[in-house]
C-alpha cells in the first residue's frame, strides 16, 4: 500500500487496467495529471489531439479496431462539452470509450466557476454510466468500475469526472480486487429453452437468413457464425455496422442490407421465412423504417446482449438475450452433427436477384466515379487494410464496394452518422493496429470537420492514408435534394475549398492528386505504398448517386434502383419522414 496523490492514482489504475494509450488535451483542472504524466510516459503513451472531439473519435477508433476500451483525458467546461459528439457517436455504435474530465474543485461545484459545466448532467443521456469522484481514495474504484461497465455487456461510453481537489489530494492507493455492482449483471449465456426453440425454428425453415450486426464484432463471434452458417448452409447479410463479421468472398454472403443495401440482400430479407438476427437492432436505416412491412413472411429470432433492444422496433418470435459468441456456441452444441439441408431453391432465388440487379457502375467519360475509386481500392488492398470512413455518399459506397474479409477492418459512424469521425478514428485504429495498413476514406465536407488532426498525425510520425473524395459538395445532401427536393441545391455546394494537397503539405504530410480516371489507380498505388501521412485528393463526379435506395419509411422490397425509378408519391412522403 502506498500513499500518493489522485493524479498518480489515475495513472497507476490505468496501467493496472492495461491501458497503453490516452488521447487528450490539457487544461486548467487536469494540469496535475499532466504534471505527473512524464513519470508514466514509458508505460502510457499520450497522444496530444488538437480538439477534444477528435480525441474522443480517436479513442473510439482505437476501441473499434482493438476491442479494448479507448481512453480520453481532457479538462472541464468547453473541453468536456467538445467530447459530447464523440461520446454520443460511440454510444450509438456501442463502442467502449472511457472519458476522464477534470472538474472544478468540489467546494466550487455548481457555482458557475471558471470553465465549469455539469459534465455529469450533460453526458447522462449519452453514457451507460458516469461518475463524479468525490474523494481521492475512491478514484481507483471509480476507474476500475468505469472500464468494467464500458467493456462488458453492451459496450458503451462511460465518463469519470475528477474535481481538481480530488486529483491533488493524497491518500492510500488501493485498487479493489473485485467489482460488485448490485444493479449491473451483464448477461452472458442465452436461455437454453429459448435456444432450443431457435434451433428448432432454424431446422424447420426453408428460406432462413442471417441478419448480422455490429454485435457480432463486439462479441468476437465470427468463427462461431461461420461454423453455424456453413453447417446449415444459411445465406448471410450484414448491416452497415456488421460488415467484416463474415467474409465478403464467401459464397453464402449476399452483401449489405438496408437503405443502401443491395437488391438481393433486401429482397432476401423481405422474402425469407426466418430472420436470424444476431447483434443487430433493426434500426430504420437497416429495415427501411417501415416496421410493419418488415419481412412479412418470416419468423424472427433476435439474439442480442441488450434486453432493451428486444421488441423495440420489431416484435420478434424468439428473443434470446445473451452474448452472441456464447449463444452461437450453445446453438452449435444443440445442433445435430450432420444436418441435411436443401437450399437449392433459396440460394437459386438469391443468385437470380443478384443477377437481375447487381451492384454496378460504368466508369466512362473523363470524370472519376467514387464507386470506381472504392472498387479499385478494394482490389489493390485485397481486404487486408483497415478502412475507416466518414459520413456521406462515400461511406455508403465503401460499404457497398469494399470487400471486407476480416472482423474489425471496417470502422464507420453508423448510428449517429457523425461527419468528422473518419480521420481521427482512423488514427485511433492505427494506434491499436500498427501492423495494419489503415486507410481513411472521407468526403471533402467531412474532412473539413477535423482536418486539424493532420498536425497530430504528423507529430506522431504516423503511417496513415487518407483518400479524400472531392466532389465539391455535401454529396449526400445533394443526393437527397436531387431525389426528394426537386433538385433544389440549397447550401450543399462548396464555393470555396482548400487545396487539400497544399494543406496536407503545410502540416508536413504528403499530398497527391488525381483528376482523371486513367490516373486513379497509379495515384492510389503510389499513395498507399508511400510511408507517412499521405493524403490522396481524388476529384470525383458530383452527379453520381448511391443506388439502390429504400426511401425512408419504405419497405425493403421497395427500392429505387436508378434514376427515373422513383415513384413520386413515395418520394414526397419520404422527404417528410426523413
Amino acid at each position: 500500500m502506498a500513499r500518493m496523490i489522485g493524479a498518480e492514482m489515475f495513472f497507476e489504475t490505468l496501467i493496472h487496467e492495461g491501458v497503453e494509450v490516452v488521447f487528450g488535451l490539457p487544461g486548467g483542472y487536469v494540469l496535475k495529471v499532466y504534471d505527473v504524466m512524464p513519470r508514466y510516459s514509458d508505460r502510457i503513451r499520450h497522444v496530444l489531439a488538437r480538439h477534444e472531439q477528435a480525441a474522443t473519435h480517436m479513442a473510439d477508433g482505437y476501441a473499434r479496431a482493438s476491442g479494448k476500451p479507448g481512453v480520453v483525458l481532457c479538462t472541464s467546461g468547453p473541453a468536456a462539452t467538445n467530447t459530447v459528439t464523440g461520446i454520443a457517436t460511440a454510444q450509438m455504435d456501442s463502442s467502449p470509450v472511457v472519458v476522464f474530465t477534470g472538474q472544478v474543485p468540489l467546494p466550487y461545484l455548481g457555482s458557475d466557476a471558471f470553465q465549469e459545466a455539469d459534465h455529469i448532467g450533460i453526458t447522462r443521456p449519452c453514457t451507460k454510466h458516469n461518475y463524479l469522484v468525490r474523494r481521492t481514495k475512491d478514484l481507483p474504484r471509480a476507474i476500475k468500475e468505469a472500464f468494467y461497465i464500458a467493456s462488458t455487456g453492451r459496450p458503451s461510453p462511460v465518463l469519470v469526472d475528477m474535481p481538481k481537489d480530488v486529483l491533488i489530494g493524497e491518500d492510500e492507493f488501493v485498487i479493489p480486487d473485485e467489482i460488485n455492482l448490485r444493479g449491473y449483471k451483464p448477461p452472458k449465456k442465452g436461455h437454453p429453452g429459448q435456444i432450443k426453440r431457435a434451433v428448432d425454428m432454424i431446422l424447420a425453415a426453408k428460406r432462413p437468413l442471417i441478419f448480422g450486426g455490429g454485435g457480432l464484432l463486439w462479441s468476437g463471434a465470427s468463427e462461431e457464425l461461420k461454423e453455424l452458417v456453413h453447417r446449415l448452409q444459411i445465406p448471410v447479410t450484414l448491416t452497415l455496422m456488421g460488415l467484416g463479421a463474415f467474409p465478403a468472398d464467401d459464397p453464402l454472403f449476399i452483401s449489405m442490407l438496408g437503405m443502401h443495401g443491395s437488391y438481393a440482400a433486401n429482397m432476401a430479407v423481405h422474402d425469407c421465412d426466418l430472420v436470424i438476427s444476431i447483434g443487430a437492432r433493426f434500426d430504420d436505416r437497416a429495415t427501411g423504417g417501415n416496421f410493419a412491412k418488415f419481412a412479412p413472411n418470416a419468423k424472427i429470432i433476435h439474439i442480442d446482449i441488450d434486453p432493451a433492444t428486444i421488441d423495440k422496433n420489431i416484435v420478434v418470435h424468439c428473443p434470446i438475450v445473451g452474448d452472441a459468441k456464447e449463444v452461437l456456441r450453445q446453438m452449435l452444441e444443440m445442433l445435430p452433427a450432420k444436418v441435411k439441408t436443401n437450399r437449392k431453391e433459396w440460394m437459386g432465388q438469391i443468385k437470380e436477384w443478384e443477377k437481375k440487379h447487381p451492384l454496378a457502375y460504368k466508369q466512362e467519360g473523363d470524370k472519376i466515379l467514387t464507386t470506381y475509386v472504392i472498387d479499385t481500392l478494394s482490389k489493390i488492398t485485397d481486404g487486408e487494410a483497415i478502412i475507416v470512413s466518414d459520413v456521406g455518399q462515400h461511406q455508403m459506397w465503401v460499404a457497398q464496394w469494399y470487400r471486407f474479409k476480416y472482423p474489425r477492418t471496417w470502422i464507420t459512424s453508423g448510428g449517429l452518422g457523425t461527419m468528422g469521425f473518419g480521420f481521427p478514428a482512423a488514427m485511433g485504429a492505427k494506434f491499436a493496429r500498427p501492423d495494419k495498413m489503415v486507410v481513411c476514406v472521407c468526403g471533402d465536407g467531412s474532412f473539413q470537420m477535423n482536418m486539424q488532426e493532420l498536425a497530430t498525425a504528423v507529430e506522431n510520425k504516423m503511417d496513415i492514408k487518407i483518400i479524400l473524395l472531392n466532389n465539391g459538395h455535401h454529396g449526400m445532401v445533394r443526393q437527397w435534394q436531387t431525389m426528394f427536393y426537386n433538385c433544389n441545391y440549397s447550401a450543399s455546394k462548396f464555393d470555396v475549398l482548400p487545396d487539400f494537397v497544399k494543406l496536407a503539405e503545410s502540416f508536413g504530410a504528403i499530398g497527391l492528386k488525381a483528376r482523371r480516371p486513367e490516373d486513379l489507380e497509379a495515384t492510389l498505388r503510389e499513395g498507399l505504398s508511400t510511408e507517412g501521412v499521405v493524403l490522396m485528393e481524388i476529384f470525383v463526379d458530383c452527379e453520381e448517386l448511391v443506388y439502390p435506395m429504400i426511401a425512408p419509411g419504405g419497405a425493403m422490397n421497395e427500392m429505387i434502383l436508378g434514376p427515373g425509378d422513383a415513384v413520386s408519391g413515395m418520394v414526397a412522403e419520404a422527404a417528410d419522414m426523413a
Partner: protein
Amino acid sequence: MRHTITLLVDNESGVLSRIAGLFSARGFNIESLNVGETLDPETSRITLVTTGDDFIIQQIIKRFNNMVNVIKVSDLTDEVRVEREMVLVRMDARDETRAEILRTADIFRAKVVDVGPKSYTLELTGDKDKITAFIELLHPMGIKELARTGTVAMKRESKLTKNKGEEK
C-alpha cells in the same frame, strides 16, 4: 394505461435524474414519484406512477434494468398490490363549514393535524380513489392548500385480498 412501477436503487445523487431522463426523452409525464430510504441506508425505493402506451413503458422498464444504479425494477400494474398515498389538506375553516369539515374527516378517518384560527389541516392516508373522493368532497368547503405524497406501493403476499377499494 396507468402503470405503478417500483425501483430499488442505489442511494446516490444522480440516480433520480437518470430515471426521470428516460421519461422526458420519450415525452412522457411522471404522474407521481416517491423516493425514500429502505432498511438498508445504501438503497432507496422509488415508486413511480405514469400513464402511457404499454409498449413504450415496457421499453422504459427494460432500460431501467440496464442502469447500473438500478438494482431491481417491478411493474406492479398487473400484480395484486397495496397502494397508498398520503395527503395534507389545509381547509378554510369558517363557522358554517367547520362542522362539515370535521364530519367528513371523521367519515374518512382522517386526522386533524393542525388547527389555526381560520383553518384546519387534515391528514389522510389511502389509495388513490379514496384520496380523490376525499378531496372532491372537501372541495366545495374551500381548500386553501394541498400536498400529496404520491403513491407508494408493494406487492401483496396474500393473493386472496382484492386489489382495489379495500382497506383492511
